């Protein structure tokens, strides 16, 4: 074979091998490591899977945060003003986590419909709202007074 062709052949086969390995890796990694986002209304309606990690976003219901006196367990409710979902988190919450503020919680749902969060993300400045939360709340307005806990 002509040396230039041989060289090209090696190059092309190398690229094919490497990119198929990469695609395999990507497919494998994506399978388990992507999380779907659900607003509380979908979770309450039973649209969210219970066997894998999801992201839940909305506003933290006023007056719903309960902190343990002895350890780091915290429970709170997340609402999109249509439905609310309870969340339990054990650990340190972000600085801007507060009642009446936007939040995204990541974790799995238990049988009772509570989200056992492994991570809680809050917005990072006063004016910023995570786009998913903004979309989940779009068209839904906060009712007068406090959202009622179910």
């Amino acid at each position, binding site marked *: 074979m002509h040396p230039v062709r041989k*060289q090209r052949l*090696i190059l092309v086969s190398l690229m094919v091998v*490497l990119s198929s390995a990469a695609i395999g890796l990507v497919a494998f990694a994506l399978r388990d490591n992507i*999380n779907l986002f659900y607003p509380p209304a979908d979770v309450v309606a039973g649209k969210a899977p219970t066997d894998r990690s999801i992201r839940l976003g909305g506003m933290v219901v006023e007056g719903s945060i309960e902190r343990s006196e*002895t350890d*780091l367990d915290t429970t709170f409710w997340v609402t999109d003003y249509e439905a609310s979902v309870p969340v339990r988190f054990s650990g*340190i919450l972000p600085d*801007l986590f507060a009642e009446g503020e936007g939040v995204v919680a990541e974790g799995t749902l238990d049988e009772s419909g509570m989200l056992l969060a492994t991570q809680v993300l809050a917005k990072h*400045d*006063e004016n910023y709202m995570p786009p998913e939360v903004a979309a989940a709340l779009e068209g839904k307005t906060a009712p007068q007074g406090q959202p009622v806990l179910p």
Partner: protein
Amino acid sequence: MIPELGHVALIIAFVLAIGLAVVPMWGAARRDVAAMNMAPSLAVGVTVFVAVAFALLAVSFLQDDFSVAVVAANSNSLLPPIFKFSALWGNHEGSLLLWVLILSGWMTAVATFSRGLPLVMVARVLSVMGMVAVGFLAFSLLTSNPFERLLPNTPLDGNDLNPLLQDPGLIIHPPLLYMGYVGLSVPFAFAIAALMGGRLDASWARWSRPWTNVAWGFLSLGIMLGSWWAYYELGWGGWWFWDPVENASFMPWLMGTALVHSLAATEKRGVFRSWTVLLAIFAFSLSLLGTFLVRSGVLTSVHAFAADPERGLFILIFLALVVGGSLLLYALRAPSVASRVNYSGVSRESLLMINNLVFTVSTIVVLLGTLFPLIMDAFSLGKYSVGPPYFNAVFVPLMALVMPFMAVGPLSRWREDTTRRWLHELLVPGLGVLVVAIVLAFLGSDDFNLWIALAVLLAGWVALGVVKDLWRRIATGVDGGLTWRRLTPSFLGMTLAHLGFAAVVLGAVVVTQENEERDLRMAVGDVETLGAYRFELMSLGQQAGPNYLADQAVFEVRRDQELIAVLVPEKRRYSASGQIMTEAAIDARLWRDLYIALGEPIGEQAWAVRLQYKPMVRWLWLGALMIGLGALVTAFDRRYRSQRSNVPAAQQGVAAVAG
């Protein structure tokens, strides 16, 4: 009055930039020397007026002129002056102005240091950069005017700078990062200019290379500072989050890494020419994509400012123009500049090609993970997020794959080499590294840690190749003596950067594997032990800062009864915005960090506390520092300096255009 002057300066800069984008390019096409000669002056003119606009905005910030919208939204009369200044780029409008300022700074640098280049090349390069400047100045003036006034409803005081950004790290992180981001426009401009002239030869690579190295070096430093800042300022001791915006700066870096290596092959051997051009186009396109991702507000990220979609659309159109235009030009001209140089499968060229393949594939998988949620959302297929597990699963193996070749690269010969020689050079010391790796992995923890063993092996292997090469160069003096003559800046820079890479890998793996972290409730007098360290909460108190009030906890850390450190983490409440901030306390050493952060108060006299022991976390940033400095050092190589008085080359350039 001052903001209006700033606005006018920005408009003048815009007009000059249009001139720069059009006149020299026209001159290059018509071979009109006078028109081409205008390029450097126009570039300097743009720089001067952008600098004036920037300075006037800085004055508005320092004088607390709250009638200016960005000042009112991002500063406060209580803010310390240095943060008033850095608040200028702690927001969308101001950071865009910084972007343009740095771009024009690069233009002036090119105009200054390229006097020996063919006139037509200089004209085209500066003109291409002028086009980029036109795009960004238009973006600034049309959608994000930093000088917009709040009249007549001027607020009495400003909203304050986000406390996260009130930090020395933030004073230098964005400028350095932008130096890198924007600096990639220089190799891009060189690539486009070369495509236009149909002249992609070794001298083109030699002109482009120092600029590429310097830009890439700044990008490395900027990313390092961002990681370091996130580590201590976001409060939770993570150093890389695979946050989309981190990825936005990381993708140009990965592409830039491929470009830096491919340029080496193009300069020395004239191979990979069209590929190098393509990489230069992609690297800058990824910079623009990063700007789009950060500035459009499409992402959930700590970097996203509240933004309106109009801006995103503007950058997206600009991005499409740049990528589309340059790829079209590439498609039209690249075949005519393909190289016809041979090299064997066992050679330095092949090793550099492996580097390029791995880094290109890495860029693609990171790009895929970053854009996947956006694509799914755009087609209404659901709202996904792709987290660190994905990136770790795809990225780590790729880096592990490139490292075995990294040790061989510097030792290998151009054109043709033999595996026998490689084995002869590296086999015995390589086995030594293997033994060390296994021993260290047993020592580091109670049981054998495979990942640490692999990291030590790979990092040691890379370091070995570098040291061997260094020795080979030194030990060639007369009569077996030592000589320093062959230690050129470009060689030293490469050595430093490769050692830095090994240090980053080592630090990243060790801190990930051996990190100890505990979240718990602690009251005064409580004691917690982490590894060999005993943390005791001594007291709680309060302290007032210039624009905040802080809750403090005083911790004593002891090891074998000996006092190691007194650490005082804080929880601050900033008075202007009421925002709460965690200020971690860190005892930093070369081999380990001790890290304490306060969560929230629990009950009356206790706090949620995060304690961390992070071995070798410093190696990450030291390594990245070495990479960045190494890249900067290479630009001092003599062969880049001598080109400037290279008159025959200049004549050649004109001839090339004529033909």
